[in-house]
């Protein structure tokens, strides 16, 4: 049996559509067929009870835009027929995390409060993908306003299941993105990473996810969570696909003053270079979890899952075999402060960013009688927001109040500077370590079961312990699959590099991918595809 078109890589699809040997509409039909096969009942705002059959399906799409996709696919095919350039992503099926605005399409942020919001404009990265010929199949699920690491906080339920075991979470907040890509519903998905929201679900779902340097990709049209941390980035099945996609979405934008004016290299061009002489570091601070006890505040320590540590070390060996130099014992002493500082900074920004959802201008408005304006605000926000936004607003308001701001917010900003310094020292060309990349596990564990962690906001947040430092520091990171654990769940590792070193990270990731291409685990398929 030949590979279904929807399982082809984006590079191959675009290549064949561009040379006329494949039509975009054929690829679209294949993707739609896959969606029908694996999605299960569509997520909705209706009262929800998990049913047995929900544990065998993906539920990634909040909104399917089949007609829009059909029109885009035809436009690509027409362009090819007319001898015009259909773009670098011609005919590639794309799923957009429902945190990006797409003109004429509901942009819900996974929240009841925006369930009826239809954006009048399109986010810059989405516009660039579509201009490059990608075919947008729809908007995929996420944690409400990206607030979570499991997708269980979405207002649109059932929440996505992990294609490798739909009784487990796909991770989050770009869980719908990672699940849809892993299940072959789309070849590429546009996600966002604020504390690990691209890399953690990529690791859980066995796909490639890249958080670019802060400012590498425009945030225009990304419904903000924590503006100083949010990074749009690619979710893909292969390193080459991630490189292809990043090249399309990266670059300065007149609509985003924080998007960097740094030239975009040809990420695909240098991808096959070997890693001889590159210095890749391992840090003891990433092999253990240090965190303050949520009750006592006492600092606790526990090793990451042994299977995952082993996977990281064998990945290092694989790279060493190709000539990379492995640098052990790189100190990253402020890693354990990442989550507490993130709790403060992200909540302050989130509380402010969520101010605008007041039931007045758009989105959910409480329909019952209200005495005055304040009551309208209160009732609309009480009914419109789920538990996570409320928790984050409360905490954000608290730690930014005049009397606490210095003790919490200003202190967290100083911690952020310390974390940034860890990376600067590790990557310093004249320093002791002179790393090209730091190699770590992406997550302390593999995908956990639905409901196992949800409800414990603090514990849930520690799923991001290894990913959040890069967000604080603004540096790029890529998560890639390196095998399966005993339960046949994917394990991910991440490579972190200095500012704007995406090309180098992709090159190292590709070297690993190339070398392990024939390993047995690569033939394994997510459970939802074996039914």
């Amino acid at each position, binding site marked *: 049996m030949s590979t279904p078109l929807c399982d082809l890589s984006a590079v191959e699809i675009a290549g064949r559509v561009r040379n006329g040997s494949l039509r975009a509409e054929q690829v679209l039909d294949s993707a739609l067929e896959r969606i029908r096969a694996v999605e299960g009942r569509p997520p909705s705002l209706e009262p929800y009870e998990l049913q047995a059959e929900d544990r065998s399906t993906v539920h990634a799409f909040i909104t399917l835009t089949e007609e829009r996709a059909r029109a885009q696919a035809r436009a690509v095919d027409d362009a090819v027929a007319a001898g015009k350039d259909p773009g670098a992503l011609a005919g590639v099926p794309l799923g957009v995390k429902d945190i990006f605005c797409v003109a004429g399409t509901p942009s819900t942020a996974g929240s009841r409060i925006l369930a009826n919001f239809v954006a009048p404009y399109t986010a810059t990265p989405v516009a660039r993908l579509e201009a490059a010929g990608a075919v947008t199949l729809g908007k995929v699920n996420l944690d409400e306003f990206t607030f979570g690491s499991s997708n269980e906080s979405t207002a649109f339920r059932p929440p996505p299941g992990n294609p490798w075991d739909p009784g487990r979470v796909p991770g989050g907040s770009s869980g719908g993105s990672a699940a849809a890509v892993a299940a072959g519903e789309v070849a590429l998905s546009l996600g966002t990473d604020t504390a690990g929201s691209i890399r953690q679900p990529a690791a859980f779902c066995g796909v490639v996810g890249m958080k670019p340097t802060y400012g590498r990709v425009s*945030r*225009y049209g990304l419904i903000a969570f924590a503006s100083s941390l949010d990074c749009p980035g690619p979710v893909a099945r292969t390193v080459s696909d991630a490189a292809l996609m990043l090249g399309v979405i990266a670059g300065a934008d007149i609509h985003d*003053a924080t998007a960097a004016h740094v030239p975009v290299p040809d990420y695909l061009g240098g991808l096959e270079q070997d890693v001889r002489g590159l210095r890749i570091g391992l840090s003891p601070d990433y092999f253990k979890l240090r965190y303050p006890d949520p009750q006592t505040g006492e600092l606790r320590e526990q090793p990451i899952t042994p299977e995952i540590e082993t996977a990281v070390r064998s990945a290092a060996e694989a790279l060493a075999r190709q000539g990379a130099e492995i640098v052990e014992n790189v100190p990253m002493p402020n890693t354990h402060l990442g989550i507490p500082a993130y709790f403060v900074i992200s909540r302050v920004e989130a509380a*402010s960013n969520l101010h605008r959802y007041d039931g007045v201008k758009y989105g959910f408005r409480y329909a019952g009688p209200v005495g005055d304006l304040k009551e309208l*605000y209160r009732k609309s926000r009480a009914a419109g927001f789920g538990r996570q936004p409320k928790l984050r607003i409360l905490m954000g308001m608290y730690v930014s109040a005049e009397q606490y701001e210095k003790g919490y*917010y200003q202190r967290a900003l100083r911690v952020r500077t310390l974390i940034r310094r860890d990376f600067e020292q590790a990557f310093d060309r004249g320093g002791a370590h002179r790393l090209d990349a730091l190699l770590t596990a992406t997550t302390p564990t593999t995908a956990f079961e639905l409901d196992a962690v949800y409800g414990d906001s603090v514990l849930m947040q520690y799923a991001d312990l290894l990913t959040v430092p890069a967000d604080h520091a603004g540096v790029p990171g890529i998560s890639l699959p390196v095998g399966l654990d005993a339960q046949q769940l994917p394990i991910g590792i991440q490579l972190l590099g200095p500012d704007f070193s995406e090309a180098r990270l992709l090159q190292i990731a590709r070297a690993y991918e190339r070398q392990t291409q024939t390993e047995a685990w690569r033939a394994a398929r997510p459970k939802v595809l074996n039914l």
Partner: protein
Amino acid sequence: MKGTMSEIEAVIGLETHIQLNTRTKIFCACRADSWGADPNTNICPVCTGLPGVLPVPNQAVIDKAVRLAAAMHVDEIRPLSYFARKNYFYPDLPKGYQISQYDETLARGGHLDLPMPDGSVRHVRIVKLHQEEDAGKTVHQGGRRLIDFNRCGVPLVEMVTAPDLRSADEAAQYLIRLRQLLRWLEVSDGDMERGQLRCDANVSIRPVGFEGLNPKTEIKNVNSIENVRAAIEKEIERQKREVEAGRRIEAWTLEWDEDTGTLRKMRSKETEADYRYFREPDLLPVRLEAGWLAAQRAALPELPLERKARFIAQYGLPAYDAEILTEERTLSEYFEAAVAARGGEAKSVSNWMMNDVLRLMRERGVLAGDLKLRPQHLASILRMVDERKITGSTGKELLARVEAGGQDPETLVAAEGLGQVSDEGALRQVARRIVEDNPGQVEAYRKGKVTLIGWFVGQVMRQTGGKADPQRTRAVLEEILAAGTDA
């Protein structure tokens, strides 16, 4: 002031919001000026704060704010300043926060030395000068709130004085000088009626000699300089009455009712709101290069009060003339250009400008810079008058004709024969005919009513279309009338 136990003085601070006259809003491409536009017709996703949008700073706003700061003699224009979010809920604030500056604002310090009509000078310190975006407008109508977002994102400079003003007149003078400066610098049109210059006044009173500050009231919603003066005056009187009656002044917020000319209590001052300021993560810090800043400062025009002083010193103008000629920048430039073209004669240029050019400007409703009658035209008309090539009245007529058509005045004079009638023979002929035609007046003159000479001169002027030299005409007429007595 009432003669109570001790003399009472007012202590006034003004909080102004200045709308910058940039082409576009501060963070989006919408027009900055929505005057007269229908509600919600000059808006976009950015200024209405739709989900996912980002602000992009308008460099022209920074340029104008820097120019204003430099003109206010600030102690420092910070090479690195920050935007911040001021968080609060209000329906006309679509993001739920206002992008403003809080700590490390654009500028620090500043002052305006305010000359008062009595010759004294009041030193007014500036305690706050920062950039921010405007919010929308809420209109209450029939129990409903209507919201107009047009004004959202209009660039503002907030500028606050220390409590350094001591009377309603001083407050009014401050606003007059500030408005003059804003227009002079071309940073704002400064029209209070259009909300381009808004002013809240903090007012308290105290015995002269007492250095502390008593509880103050805040007057809001006043939309003209005259009303600011009236409102402050009323409030000072009210506070005096309260104190005389043994009552305490409470920290109210008062609203000016334009229709009735009275102040109304809006609310008791609540506890300070906590706006939970933090730096705006969607904008980079405002970085101003030292070289660029120095160039901005160097490009700052001479300020109105400095120019006035120079006009007095350099051209020997009376203070009254200098004040009027420096009221507006293009007028002062016009004056100097005209004096330069005339090669001096500053007082004569000033006279013509204050009497005739200003009237022309008023009639046409334009600034000096927009007149078709250019300074060199004025200078050449004045030269022709001084050289007696044309009469004064021809000169005045020429002003209007050049303004209407824009032609060169010398060419006009030559082409239309407007030159003065100096041909003695022709003049004599006209004079003689008038004497012959008016025996009654001649007889009266000869009987001693010599003031009739003016009437005879007027007749000659009329006959010659104003081209006769009045002095020459008078001499000729006197000669003819005298000769007649002998005959």
